[in-house]
């Protein structure tokens, strides 16, 4: 693969011959073209997956800016490892695996850093589940959209409290709608383990979201 010398050589987003590449070309072919120095092909790959990957990492980390950075890091890794890419799995599996590893490593870094969160100030003394910092909003509800927003926020918070090994399969299944087989390949585990973890994750969520069900 040719090396880059300036930003202008990576003008994949603007100078994309869209009709030629959109949807008709498989991910494998695009990556093969990227390997041969076709920057437009890589641009098409980015266009196809940037929202999915950003969204997935955001659901995992619950931090939008961090998720965007990690999504970009995912694409950087795909680009740099294009020479070593093997076509044994689908490209989506490959890129989701990279994104999952980055997200899990970010979550572990956060644990090590022991970020002081507002939740931490509301830890119950009896050792039970910490209560979220969610002061009551006294304002009257405007419409159903606000109710939906509040519910989504609650779901997102509840997902954020799940252990990472339950969080990733639940998001891949219930948010992204991926098959058990694909999730197993992304997480590099067995299909039975994936089913079991998703079931446990739903059980945890059901307990946390009792008020909304």
């Amino acid at each position, binding site marked *: 693969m040719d090396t880059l010398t300036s930003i202008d050589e990576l003008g994949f*987003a603007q100078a994309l011959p869209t009709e030629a590449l959109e949807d008709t070309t498989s991910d494998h072919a695009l990556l093969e073209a990227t390997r041969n120095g076709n920057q437009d092909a890589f641009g098409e790959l980015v266009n196809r997956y940037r929202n999915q990957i950003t969204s997935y990492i955001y659901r995992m980390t619950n931090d939008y800016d961090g998720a965007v950075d990690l999504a970009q890091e995912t694409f950087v890794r795909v680009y740099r490892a294009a020479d070593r890419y093997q076509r044994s799995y689908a490209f989506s599996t490959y890129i989701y695996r990279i994104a999952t590893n980055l997200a899990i490593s970010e979550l572990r870094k956060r644990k090590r850093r022991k970020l002081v969160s507002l939740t931490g100030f509301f830890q119950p003394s009896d050792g039970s589940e910490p209560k979220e910092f969610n002061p009551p909003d006294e304002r009257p509800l405007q419409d159903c959209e606000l109710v939906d927003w509040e519910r989504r926020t609650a779901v997102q918070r509840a997902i954020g409290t799940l252990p990472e090994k339950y969080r990733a399969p639940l998001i891949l299944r219930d948010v992204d709608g991926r098959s058990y087989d694909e999730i197993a390949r992304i997480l590099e585990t067995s299909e039975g383990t994936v089913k079991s973890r998703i079931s446990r994750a739903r059980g945890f969520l059901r307990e946390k979201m009792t008020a909304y069900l």
Partner: protein
Amino acid sequence: MSKTTCSTIRRQLDELMLGDAQSPDVSQHLRECNACRDFHEKQTKLRQMVGSLGTVSAPSDFDFRLRSKLASGKSNGSYQLSRSLWLFGKRTAIVAAALLIIVGAVFLIRELQNQNTVIQTAEDNRPPSRTVPAVVDSTTAGTNQDSKATDVTAKAGEKEKEKVSRKIMSIPPRIVRTLDSKDEASLRAPLIRAPQQAVDQIFPVDASQQSLRVSLFDGRGNPRTISLPTVTFGSQRVVPTATSFAPKGVW
């Protein structure tokens, strides 16, 4: 409704995607079992809520920032190479320094151990101090003879010490024939078990080639010297092993 059936039905429901058609068995069970129907309704609602989170869009400058990252990564290539080389060199230097310290410490410890061994060997080679009684003829010796005999014993002790110290210092002993006399017949002969090679170390004085001479004073104060042939009577005889005896003439 048996628990096994309920758990099987719930697992099947769990594995279905939202909107997938249920099997007739599952539908039949849900009509009959209130608990499973309640579970299914709550589970479906929960999954709908989770699924409603939807996709978050990437920011509009996503591509531009990605291109910047890729380009800066290219320009940083040589810097990263030199950095990795520097790190490699640093690691190598640390490992080399650690090895040097370990080797030095081992050398120092061995040197100290050698010194201790030399001192210990010298102390082990020194013969045990023993009192040498004066040769006294109880029938003929008087008080004058007693004092002279004590003098002789003291001199013998000093000479023996000098010889031992010279042996330790690896200086060959000077062959001096003396007229000192010793009487060790009344002492219990210690049995020294030692290899044949160690005989010289145990007895720094080579007495095997000397005849025994006893100097006495007669009743009028005249010295009389009596020479005796080499006699083995067991005093400090060296038995190299339990089954063999020292050669004749070795004291």
